[in-house]
């Protein structure tokens, strides 16, 4: 019954995924595939269900009300959330998330140990490598995460995911709150992570970033898929433009 992951090269398959909160249907019958090695963009107006979709996929903090999620050939919608993370489907959060009292390096080692299943020495090597990959300032790695800047904490959140060598990384609006040069740096970072063999799903409001990095784009509106396909075509889709009510960001 399960579709094999190699059948169409899909690493993740969402099938008729739905999430209800009482009367409200936050995510409504959404189906899509993410192919191995691609950068898959997700856009949509506020409240369109983008972050809820990430919550459902990772089980943090809740899974779907209905539907199936197949990751690397296995149904994961009933797995405990930490098992999904360990299986290599790892997310970041839209708001800042870090272990504030732990040092920057410990923050990353944690991901290497628990997501990556690495032992101490290997985990520390993986953490150093991930810190390098995100361009984190080595001199500041012994500081508690709470003393770091917004951008540094974003770097850490991504590094702690990368350190565990995930198969798929879900990035939830990583560009939020960043300056223009930082956004550009972030775009390069996303591409370099993909080049390490990590498949990426990217939720983003900053369309320049989305168009720069993603190979395919899905637009959600009111919890349902509005458009889906080549990013440059999708953003010109009349329904998408209307959903955004002609927001300036769309006119590039």
């Amino acid at each position, binding site marked *: 019954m399960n579709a094999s992951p190699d059948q169409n090269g899909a690493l993740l398959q969402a099938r008729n995924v739905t999430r209800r909160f009482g009367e409200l249907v936050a995510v409504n019958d959404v189906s899509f595939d993410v192919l191995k090695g691609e950068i898959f963009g997700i856009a949509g107006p506020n409240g369109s269900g983008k972050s809820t979709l990430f919550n459902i996929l*990772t089980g*943090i*903090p809740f899974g779907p009300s209905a539907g199936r999620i197949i990751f690397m050939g296995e149904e994961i919608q009933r797995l*405990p*959330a*930490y*098992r999904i*993370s*360990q299986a290599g489907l*790892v*997310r*970041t*959060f839209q708001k800042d*998330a*870090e*272990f*504030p*009292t*732990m040092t920057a390096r*410990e923050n990353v*080692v*944690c*991901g290497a*140990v*628990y*997501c*990556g*299943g690495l032992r*101490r020495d290997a*985990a520390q090597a993986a953490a150093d490598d991930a810190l390098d990959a995100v361009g984190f300032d080595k*001199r*500041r790695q*012994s*500081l*508690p995460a709470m*003393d770091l800047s917004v951008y540094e904490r974003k770097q850490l959140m991504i590094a*702690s*995911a990368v350190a*565990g060598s995930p198969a798929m990384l879900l990035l939830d609006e990583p560009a939020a709150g960043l300056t223009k040069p930082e956004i550009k740096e972030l775009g390069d970072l996303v591409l370099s992570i993909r080049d390490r063999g990590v498949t990426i799903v990217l939720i983003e409001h900053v369309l320049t970033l989305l168009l720069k990095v993603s190979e395919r784009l899905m637009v959600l509106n009111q919890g349902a898929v509005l458009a889906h396909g080549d990013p440059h075509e999708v953003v010109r889709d009349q329904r998408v433009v209307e959903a955004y009510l002609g927001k300036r960001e769309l006119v590039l």
Partner: protein
Amino acid sequence: MIRSLSGNRAFVLGAALVIAVLMPFVVQDTYWRHLFIIAFIYAMVASNWDLSLGYAGIFNFGHVAFFGVGVYAAALSTKFLGADPWIAIFLGGVAASLAGALVALPVIRLKGIYVVLVTFAFGQLVLQLVLSQSEITGGTQGIVRIPALEAFGYNFLRDFKFGYYYVALGLLVISTIFLRFVVRSDFGMSLRALRDNEEYAVARGIPTGLQRLKVLVVSAFFTGVAGGFFAIYLRVASPEIFGFPVQSLVLSMVLVGGTGTIYGPIAAAVILTFASEMLGSIEGLDEGRVMLIAVAMIIVLLFFPNGLASIWRRRAQRAALADSADKAVAETRLIENSAGASR
């Protein structure tokens, strides 16, 4: 700079241990030695409590009940199983760990204030159990005439508690080494991660429920051992240990010493045990000392919300910040110099 601080710390710890080892040669008086033994027992309970409360951030208010479980497990196993007192002390730890697992079952499904309620209720439940099963536990009378420690024909009741002092100190040292090992392990790191940000910890693959279960079992063990030793040493098991005074005294040791540290609660246990005794011996302060300690606790926490250990930690953190700033300045100079040289 950081290295000199940690060197500093090793020196202080080493000095404290040497003083503790030599103490019985200076202090010959039974009463004073008794106070040290009680302080060491409380130090074990407080520092292990901090593993679940301070490191893992579980609002566990049943920890003193683990101590009580250790006391009764040791007492009952000598009475009914004829267990050797040494074995009984160990059984105290085992029983407390089992109690820890039992408490964990509801705790891993709950959050915040509900954890406080459940763990607090657990303590009351054990107390009621002890009181109601009086034909086994002696009820309010407790269990008396518990056999004393003996080793190679040496009875520890001799020599003004000389032997007991070293058993207590030895257990505290072993418990502390164990705590250090736990705290520095990957498991210890995951506990801090859970405390800092549970949702994020799950997103990084940390099994919250399992870690909470483990930390309650682990932190209960030496607490139960302390309880077992307490029973064997005093040769009594009394339901008073489940009472509020013991609970609040040990809690104040954790809070005054500093949550999220090992040595803070240990130091505070020694200070508060002696302070409480000293004040109690002053005429008319027998009852008032509890209030005085409470006031002292409020004052300490007002100025050092993270406990006395935070004074030390703040210095280390400032050193780390200064260190990274130093490095940045040095690097900038290097870049400037090389830029100047290439010009």
